[in-house]
């Protein structure tokens, strides 16, 4: 079902509600809702301001700095930017085929990132809502609450994440902002003792990841009606797949399907992604709206990320994760699953896949090799695409004759999901907020939908797993008539009307 609440038919006289998460890091997201006197919802929009200025910032810089520099884009998945930039620059230095060591060390780094990011998201950010309920007491709805009631779940979440970070440290040189991937390869391989230390834990991580899939499945089945319908909407889907159609988060060709699962294009090379994908600008948002060119802006928007990838591929090349994929696909009964909350289930299947991939790579002698870098005929343009934890990530650079970056274009996962996120929250607003007095619990429903995508604007929430919110009710004349504020530790206060909007 598509709900059109993008633009109110008659905005005059409607009250405006802004859900304004405080941003401490890169992303800054805000939801605005227009309500009439009866609290009926007329318009819902997610605005995201992110990464502004980056494309400008790198102009003139020498290209080999990019893989290190771009990690500053995002504090949550720096490794994804590191690798996407390195892949674009492989093209620039003419490295058409990396050495086995370079490719496998990078894959190891990437799957370490997937594991740590998915673990962080599920255990810290999503599990409080899912375990306790969206309306549960705010004091409980955080990782501390999870640790108190489900200590085993919380502990394994922490250790899974730590293992992923350790894989990153070993491959990138540092836990954050490493330098491992360089144009044409890597600058270090894995030392045998580092490999052995990781292998000692690798099997346990697979076991715990399987438990995590079980947990999320149990939650889904326990409340099937809610999980299947909450914030659900049909859309096209896009991701990379391996040449044989397998799930591959590091490299592949682009595959798009329509909402019924029919293939729109397949194994498309991404060096000319703009032939397939283009972006629309809307006056009310800084973030662009990408869409599939052949379908146009109206019909061509799509979603990316775990929910898409697990269904877009033909199989997963590791046994446990593939068995879970089959069960997931069967659950859809021959139709693609478009349930927003099924992102969590798919994400845990991917975490299991990452754990299994890491184990397989650790058993591969190539990761300790010495042949690290290749180069070939230099090019002045390079595109790198990777499946980051949150979805497809595109880095595109053009250089001048002096090795300086002239133009950079990035399409990050959250931008791909821009329209999808808007659809999800419109769906939720229509279903849960329409005609009711706003409460913290109701606002949390909006957040639950946003959070399912794990968008980058959730940067601000990762510390305690919740978004500090300020919601202003503004009457038609633009005066603040009420304010609901929730601070970082979950306290919810009804602040008296103030003429001044002292947002975050």
């Amino acid at each position, binding site marked *: 079902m598509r709900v059109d609440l993008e633009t109110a038919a008659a905005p005059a006289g409607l009250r405006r509600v802004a859900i304004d998460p405080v941003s401490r890091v890169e992303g800054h997201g805000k939801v605005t809702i227009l309500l009439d006197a009866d609290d009926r919802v007329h318009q819902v929009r997610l605005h995201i301001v992110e990464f502004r200025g980056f494309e400008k910032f790198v102009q003139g810089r*020498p290209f080999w*700095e990019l893989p*290190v520099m771009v*990690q500053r884009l995002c504090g949550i998945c720096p490794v994804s930017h590191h690798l996407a930039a390195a892949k674009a620059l492989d093209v620039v230095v003419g490295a058409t085929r990396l050495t086995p060591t370079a490719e496998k060390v990078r894959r190891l780094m990437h799957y370490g990132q997937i594991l740590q990011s998915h673990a962080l998201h599920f255990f810290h950010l999503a599990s409080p809502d899912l375990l306790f309920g969206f309306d549960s007491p705010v004091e409980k709805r955080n990782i501390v609450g999870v640790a108190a009631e489900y200590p085993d779940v919380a502990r394994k979440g922490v250790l899974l994440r730590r293992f992923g970070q350790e894989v990153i440290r070993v491959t990138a040189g540092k836990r954050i*902002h490493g*330098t491992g991937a360089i*144009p044409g390869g890597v*600058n270090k391989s894995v030392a045998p003792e580092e490999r052995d230390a990781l292998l000692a834990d690798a099997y346990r991580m697979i076991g715990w990841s399987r438990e995590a899939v079980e947990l999320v499945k149990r939650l889904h089945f326990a409340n099937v009606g809610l999980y299947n319908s909450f914030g659900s909407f049909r859309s096209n889907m896009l991701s990379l797949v391996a040449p044989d159609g397998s799930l591959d988060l590091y490299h592949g060709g682009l595959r798009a399907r329509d909402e019924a699962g029919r293939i729109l294009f397949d194994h498309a090379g991404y060096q000319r992604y703009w032939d397939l994908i283009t972006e629309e600008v809307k006056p009310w948002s800084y973030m662009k709206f990408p869409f599939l060119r052949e379908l146009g802006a109206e019909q061509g928007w799509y979603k990316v990320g775990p929910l898409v990838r697990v269904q877009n591929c033909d199989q997963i090349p590791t046994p446990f994760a593939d068995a879970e994929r089959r069960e997931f696909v069967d659950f859809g009964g021959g139709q693609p699953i478009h349930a927003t909350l099924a992102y969590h289930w798919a994400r845990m299947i991917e975490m299991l896949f990452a754990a299994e991939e890491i184990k397989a790579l650790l058993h591969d002698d190539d990761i300790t090799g010495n042949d690290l870098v290749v180069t070939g005929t230099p090019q002045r343009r390079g595109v790198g695409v990777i499946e980051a934890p949150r979805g497809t990530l595109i880095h595109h650079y053009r250089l001048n004759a002096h090795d*300086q970056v002239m133009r950079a274009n990035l399409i990050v996962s959250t931008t791909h999901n821009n329209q999808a996120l808007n659809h999800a929250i419109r769906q939720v607003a229509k279903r849960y907020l329409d005609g009711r007095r706003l409460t913290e619990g109701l606002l949390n429903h909006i957040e639950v939908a946003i959070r399912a995508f794990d968008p980058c604007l959730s940067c601000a929430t990762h510390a305690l797993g919740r978004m500090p919110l300020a919601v202003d009710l503004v009457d038609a004349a633009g005066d603040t008539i009420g304010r609901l504020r929730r601070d970082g530790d979950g306290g919810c206060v009804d602040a008296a009307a103030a003429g001044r909007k002292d947002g975050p």
Partner: protein
Amino acid sequence: MSGRESFLLDGTPVPFAPGETVMQAALAAGHYIPHLCYHRDFKPHGSCKVCTVRAGGQTVASCTLPAQPGLEVESATPELEDNRRTLVQMLFVEGNHFCPSCEKSGNCLLQAVAYELGVLSADLDHLFPSRPIDASHPDLLLDFNRCILCELCVRASAEVDGKGVFALSGRGIGKHLIVNAESGRLVDTAIAATDKAVDVCPVGVILRKRVGFAVPIGRRRFDVAPVSAQAKGDAPRPPREKERR
């Protein structure tokens, strides 16, 4: 070493050979005195003032101060360290130093000295100068944002390479590095990637193109040991070793 004359550095006797400076003798004996513009292969220059010590009632640059028997030199005093920190902080705010994405990180003397002195933040307003990089040369790149005006490249290019590619221009806060070419661009000079001037820059201004982050973090010079533990590596080389170079 018996029979050699010595001076006192913070109360410790330091032997020296005739003609040596306090800096040279101290480093040779394994005692670290913070420095930036001193380099073992070049005549002391005395411009950065980071090596300033108290000796004989005066405040002087130890890299230019001739060692004398019995001289009492104070270096590691809170006041002198404080002044050094301020000098380093000024260098940080006068340029654009962004360590996390600088390929010289871990090999940079400015960064190493800052760590050594415990400089954790600039504590001064950044000037954010606008200094476009010169990427005109096919093999080399100049990122002026990081220049600390030590003149080592100026000296190396003139004295060793015999080319005079670099010079400083302007005065005071307006002082800056220039390239000696009518166009002002590196491509129009005789510099080559094998020149001494290319290797001598203690920070990340003069760079070979396309090698960037080839050495992983953790294996760079100051990742291995702090600069103070590498004093001997900065000591003047014995004459024969110098000739072989």
